[in-house]
């Protein structure tokens, strides 16, 4: 990483110009593809006489994205969600065909549940849930007075959405596709190069805590980004899909290796801080072969193959120099800390070797059948947050439903639909009120333009070609705005509002009164969604949810200490990473919240991994029955302390670990366990970690390493 900053040079004018042009070209390509998909979908829908061609057109706008992979991924989930929603609508309608009130209640509940389910997923899976919710409303509400029509309504909605999805999928995938596979490959390469570079550069010894935390954040982000990209790319690329599991394995091994690496460095840092330079320097010396092994051009892919024999050689060099280095130490504490560090180092080298091995295999020209073990990336979800989203969406729906029934407003259904759609869609983003507000403005602009377009332009025109020409000037700016990150919400609202309000049909109707009523209903629906976000604020981004997530992160130690072992290592790492990245996305960088988060994340990571390794060793080699109660007590008290950190719990955990270490010392055949326990103990006694707040007030700087 330092190598790349050193080579920074002043950008030349023509570079800037070329970059700007490339960016502009990509925007215009997006506009051209989106508009082509929009009008082609509309044309086909009119040709095959679908009842609402505008739904197909709106679909193309919703799935529009610059990346082909994202279009396909979103299309896939839109299709799934639409199917689920259509079936939901038919089931609800069949249950309460004559009971308008019960039907609305059931519909509100269904939509609320779907919106709640959406908060449990990242990515487009969340979108599928939201869609399943509001598709039911879209299918059911227009036929609320005519229950037998629900089936036709469902089939029409399905056909329109599928058509829109097909057209945008084909156009974005075939016409100058922008491949996300390249982004994925670049991300994986960057991750690889950054990590190995970081390992190589830190061979000199202690890394300041601050840069450690920064590196941790970067590693966490890298692994979560990679997982997000992977889950989208598999839709665009059959090759990537075949390698998907290898990609996951690559990521898991990355997480494992980076955790071990950090533990090792915390150990060295602690030794240095306690002025135990001899032990620290010996460890750094033991570590040196890795730095030498990595002292080669680092590049992911087959070029990384040269690293493999070098790492194996480094492992052997470490193993052979270990005894000699150990002999230079005489202090009992030094020897113990050296042993702990050496076993950690061995674990790290093995993991690093596996990681590089997967990186090489990823680039192999052919997929090796069944070579990779099956792994999955588990997420850390919060069910209370989901409950809040459910409650909010259900209440918003019910309030509008009651208003609709009481006021007998002809357009009430439209308002209700729009409120549903956006209350659900924005339930999963951090600042939904602002997003809804922007979208409302977009809708407003789009509908005002729609009025001009509909009554002054389209009335003069005849035929589909002229319709395209007539609508084009009104929509093109909106679609352009969709391509810019800052104005995407406004642009989307603009394009959606315009296409919605024009409501293209084979025989276009021109009815200003209906038009204005409909427009007002749309805006009211959007505002209702905004109000619902103010009345029941979203859990995402709130201090309350952050506290809960932090508690879950701490509970990961209990998971490491008590959950069944098979697959636990992957589960622990991936949930940890997901939680940390969620909280990191919701905290201000550098704020006290974010610092507390990272302090906890480091402690949880280190202790949790050590506990998992300890339990693996306990199972693998067996534990004498006289020792087991002490180890179990240590695991249990640590789990309880991390679940609910307080000073008495801290003392209990510290004493339990000390007792366990002492009793392991009495059993000669269980010496391999002591290194893990020792690592846990050192993490517990680290005066610079977040745990310091729970320590008794006695000065600890000496005790950090001398306590037994």
């Amino acid at each position, binding site marked *: 990483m330092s190598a790349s900053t050193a080579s920074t040079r002043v950008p030349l004018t023509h570079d800037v110009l070329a970059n700007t042009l490339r960016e502009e070209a990509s925007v215009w390509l997006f506009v051209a593809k989106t508009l082509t998909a929009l009008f082609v979908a509309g044309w086909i829908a009119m040709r095959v006489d679908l009842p609402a061609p505008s739904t197909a057109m709106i679909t193309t706008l919703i799935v529009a994205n610059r990346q082909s992979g994202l279009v396909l991924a979103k299309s896939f989930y839109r299709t799934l969600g639409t199917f689920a929603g259509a079936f939901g609508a038919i089931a609800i309608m069949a249950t309460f065909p004559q009971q308008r009130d019960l039907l609305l209640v059931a519909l509100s509940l269904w939509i609320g549940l779907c919106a709640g389910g959406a908060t449990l997923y990242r990515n487009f899976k969340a979108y599928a849930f939201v869609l399943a919710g509001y598709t039911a409303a879209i299918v059911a509400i227009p036929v609320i007075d005519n229950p037998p029509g629900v089936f036709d309504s469902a089939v029409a909605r399905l056909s329109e959405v599928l058509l829109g999805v097909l057209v945008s999928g084909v156009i974005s*995938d075939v016409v100058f596709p922008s491949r996300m596979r390249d982004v994925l490959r670049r991300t994986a390469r960057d991750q690889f190069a950054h990590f190995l570079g970081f390992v190589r550069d830190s061979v000199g010894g202690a890394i300041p805590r601050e840069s450690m935390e920064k590196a941790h954040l970067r590693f966490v982000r890298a692994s979560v980004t990679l997982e997000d990209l992977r889950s989208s790319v598999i839709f665009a690329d059959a*090759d990537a899909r075949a390698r998907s599991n290898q990609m996951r394995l690559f990521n898991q091994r990355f997480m494992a290796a980076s955790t071990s690496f950090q533990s090792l460095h915390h150990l060295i840092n602690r030794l240095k801080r306690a002025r135990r330079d001899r032990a620290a320097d010996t460890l750094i010396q033991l570590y040196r072969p890795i730095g030498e092994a990595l002292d080669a051009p680092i590049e992911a892919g087959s070029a990384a193959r040269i690293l493999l024999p070098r790492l194996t050689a480094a492992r052997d060099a470490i193993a052979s120099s270990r005894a000699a280095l150990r002999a230079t130490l005489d202090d009992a504490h030094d020897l113990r800390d050296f042993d702990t560090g050496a076993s950690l180092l061995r674990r790290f080298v093995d993991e690093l070797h596996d990681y590089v091995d997967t990186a090489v295999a990823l680039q192999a020209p052919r997929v090796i059948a069944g070579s990779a073990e099956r792994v999955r990336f588990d997420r850390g979800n919060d069910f209370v947050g989901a409950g809040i989203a459910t409650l909010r969406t259900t209440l918003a729906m019910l309030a509008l439903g009651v208003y609709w029934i009481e006021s007998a407003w002809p357009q009430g259904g439209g308002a209700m639909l729009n409120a549903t759609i956006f209350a659900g869609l924005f339930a999963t983003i951090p600042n939904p009120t602002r997003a809804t507000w922007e979208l409302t403005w977009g809708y407003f602009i789009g509908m005002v333009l729609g009025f001009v377009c509909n009554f002054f332009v389209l009335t003069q025109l005849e035929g589909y070609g002229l319709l395209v020409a007539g609508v084009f000037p009104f929509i093109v700016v909106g679609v352009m705005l969709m391509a810019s990150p800052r104005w995407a919400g406004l642009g989307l609202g603009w394009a959606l509002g315009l296409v919605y309000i024009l409501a293209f049909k084979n025989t276009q109707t021109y009815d200003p009164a209906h038009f204005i009523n409909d427009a007002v209903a749309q805006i009211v629906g959007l505002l209702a969604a905004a109000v619902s976000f103010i009345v029941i604020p979203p859990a995402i981004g709130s201090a309350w949810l952050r506290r809960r997530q932090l508690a879950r992160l701490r509970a990961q130690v209990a998971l490491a200490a008590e959950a069944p072992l098979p697959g636990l290592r992957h589960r622990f790492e991936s949930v940890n990473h997901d939680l940390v990245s969620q909280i990191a996305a919701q905290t201000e960088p550098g704020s006290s919240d974010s610092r507390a988060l990272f302090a906890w994340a480091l402690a949880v990571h280190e202790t949790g991994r050590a506990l998992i390794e300890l339990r693996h060793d306990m199972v693998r080699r067996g534990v004498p029955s006289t020792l087991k109660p002490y180890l179990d007590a240590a695991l249990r008290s640590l789990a309880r302390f991390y679940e609910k950190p307080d000073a008495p719990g801290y003392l209990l955990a510290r004493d339990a670990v000390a007792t366990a270490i002492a009793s392991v010392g009495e059993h000669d055949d269980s010496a391999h366990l002591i290194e893990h326990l020792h690592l846990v103990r050192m993490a517990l006694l680290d005066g610079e970690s977040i745990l310091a707040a729970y320590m008794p007030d006695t000065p600890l700087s000496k005790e950090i390493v001398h306590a037994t």
Partner: protein
Amino acid sequence: MPREIVLGDALVPGLLILFVLAIAVIWLLDAIAGRFSLYRFVWHPPLFRLAVFVCVFGAFALLLN
């Protein structure tokens, strides 16, 4: 091609059913092609995939009558 297909006493447009079936078949073919890296032999995979889709969809429509 049947214009409408009866699903549990309800008429569904035949095109819709065939479309969904064709998508499923394409998904399968695509997975097989990816598994054995067959797209190496193709110049423009998405275009090729679209062509195969048209063939499958068309074949369904012609065969089922």
